[in-house]
């Protein structure tokens, strides 16, 4: 056992036991290829254990706080539309799919896109109705060998969403996944598992939104696997606005074929501990990935964005801009890895991470990592971390704009580089509103 993982932990034992209980209750599924993968993943999770800060990938992000919590693994709850009213995103239109404590919630969900545009199934349904599809794609992309949380999710994967967009199809309405964790009566953990397959020359917009109800602790450990076939285009937004007791660890794993385009924005507004892994494999020529990120921790919040772009084929392009506004005693991490394989000549890869630190108690750790094994490539990276520009503040004040107002205006403008990228208008407007509220607090 490597010393960079915790060897024993109660929460871990609880999760292992839950796996065995589940297994007992299974009939045919137990022998399915899917379940064999789960078992392998469980073994892997058992061996790895939860990472400690001695693990290179977790150096600045200690999960000790999470491991001190206790969670009820029975996720059942009753939730009505009224309960969700405070979490509403105004004017939101499209396929709105609710997950409550990780379980697909049919009554709350609304699917409006016709079946010839997109097939949307819960993961639990898909296991039964289309096992072949699951066997072909499940856990083929997200690495559960090295990442304990992905292994855990893979082992316990039982619900989430499966989306399939047929070739040459544009899904006109966005698909919005709303993950609601209801902690009103107990501490809840969930392991949502999503699979998105976008066919040749197809196009789709999708968002994942994470919210918490109640005062309890929550731990969401999500994995989303996305496959873009050649010429496919996808807009993908991940938005977290959870509570001070929310732990969130998520991996989005993207696999792109020739000339596919992936546009993403990862926005973290609130949460106790948030780790976003965004891993993109550019496995085709002329494939392009755009990654934007915004995080605004305050209080004692911790937000960690790990991105990995793997340029595996020639002539691919990636462009990344992450921006952070850190207040109080919050901490932020940005770790951006760009990998250019020997074959990936003519790669263009750009990365930038800019941070404003508003208080002396806040800390930002940035680590760009470029590993380039081809010679004909254009790569650049840059990170900046500074305070709000005093010159700019004075200039604005000298024109009559009060200090707080000027500060908000500057920071709002700073966030706009990311928010303006979001093409689902109600989501962008909602975020602009929440960002403004957070800045004026």
């Amino acid at each position, binding site marked *: 056992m490597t010393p960079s993982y915790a060897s024993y932990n109660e929460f871990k034992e609880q999760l292992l036991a839950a796996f065995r209980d589940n297994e007992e209750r299974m009939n045919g599924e137990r022998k399915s290829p899917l379940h064999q993968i789960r078992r392998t993943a469980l073994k892997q999770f058992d061996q790895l254990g939860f990472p400690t800060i001695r693990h290179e990938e977790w150096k600045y992000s200690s999960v000790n706080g999470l491991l001190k919590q206790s969670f009820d693994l029975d996720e059942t709850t009753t939730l009505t539309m009224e309960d969700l009213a405070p979490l509403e995103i105004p004017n939101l239109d499209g396929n709105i799919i609710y997950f409550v404590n990780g379980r697909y919630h049919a009554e709350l969900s609304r699917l409006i896109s016709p079946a010839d545009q997109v097939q949307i199934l819960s993961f639990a349904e898909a296991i039964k109705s289309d096992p072949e599809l699951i066997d072909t794609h499940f856990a083929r992309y997200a690495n559960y060998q090295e990442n304990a949380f992905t292994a855990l999710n893979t082992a316990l994967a039982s619900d989430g969403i499966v989306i399939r967009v047929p070739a040459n199809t544009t899904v006109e309405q966005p698909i919005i996944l709303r993950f609601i964790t209801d902690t009103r009566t107990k501490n809840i953990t969930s392991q949502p598992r999503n699979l998105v397959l976008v066919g040749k020359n197809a196009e789709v917009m999708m968002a994942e939104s994470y919210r918490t109800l109640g005062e309890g602790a929550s731990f969401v450990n999500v994995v989303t696997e996305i496959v873009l076939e050649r010429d496919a285009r996808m807009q993908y937004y991940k938005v977290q606005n959870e509570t001070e007791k929310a732990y969130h660890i998520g991996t989005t794993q993207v696999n792109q074929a020739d000339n596919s385009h992936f546009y993403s924005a990862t926005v973290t507004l609130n949460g106790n501990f948030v780790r976003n892994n965004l891993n993109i494999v550019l496995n085709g020529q002329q494939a392009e990935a755009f990654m934007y990120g915004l995080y605004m921790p305050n209080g004692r919040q911790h937000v960690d964005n790990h991105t990995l772009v793997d340029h595996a084929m020639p002539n691919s392009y990636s462009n990344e801009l992450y921006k952070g506004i850190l207040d109080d005693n919050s901490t932020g991490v940005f770790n951006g890895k760009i990998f250019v394989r020997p074959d990936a000549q003519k790669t263009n890869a750009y990365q930038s991470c800019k941070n404003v630190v508003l208080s002396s108690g806040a800390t930002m750790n940035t680590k760009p990592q470029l590993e380039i094994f081809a010679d004909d490539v254009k790569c650049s990276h840059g990170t900046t971390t500074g305070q709000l520009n005093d010159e700019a503040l004075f200039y604005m004040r000298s*024109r009559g704009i009060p200090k707080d107002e000027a500060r908000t205006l500057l920071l709002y403008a700073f966030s706009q580089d990311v928010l303006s990228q979001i093409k689902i208008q109600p989501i962008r407007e909602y975020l602009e509103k929440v960002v403004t509220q957070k800045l004026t607090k």
Partner: protein
Amino acid sequence: MLSISNLQASIGDKEILRGLNLEVNPGEVHAIMGPNGAGKSTLASVLAGREDYDVTGGSVTFDGKDLLDMAPEERAAEGIFLAFQYPVEIPGVSTTNFLKTAMNEIRKYRGQDPLDAVQFLKLMKEKMKLVNIDQSLLSRSLNEGFSGGEKKRNEIFQMAMLEPKLAILDETDSGLDIDALRIVADGVNQLRSPERATIVVTHYQRLLDYIVPDFVHVLYKGRIVKSGPKELALELEEKGYDWIKAEAI
């Protein structure tokens, strides 16, 4: 209107203003000249309320109120405007949006209703013509990537929009071509009225051909060491500052 008496200001251990006196009455234009590093921009900044400077002595009143007691935004709302020697770039905020916010904040301070979009646009159109500035410039991020001349013209545009009682122009003429210089001067002259006053900081007599001052002052080592009528500027242009420095000792 503005009354500066024995003003002393420093930054860190460095004394910059060392007992400066100046009276500005409504309707007047004052030119301030002086060698590099004399403290001209410091004076302008202290009047606008920049917090980097410590005011260690003296007083400044504006319309009878203690100016040094006010935050920069309050001074702006009271009618002081500083055109910066080096205008600051504000990424992500358009001039239009910036000015609208500024105007309505000032109006709020004065107990006036905010301008609606139509009123604001109308005013903007009018003033744009005055300083011959292009709409496309105003919708870009404020000063970001503007040429030196564009920045200066934008300062005057803002001044025209805000219609201050006291405008302080810190080397607004430097970096301007002849046409732009005339435009800037026209902008200032249009604002001239019996109720308003202007302080023009400049190194060149040329600007004063267009904006004719009532008084010319020489600032040297943190003090006004000589004052005179507009002809003093001509004399300075001809003779430089050495004779003044000699007199000042």
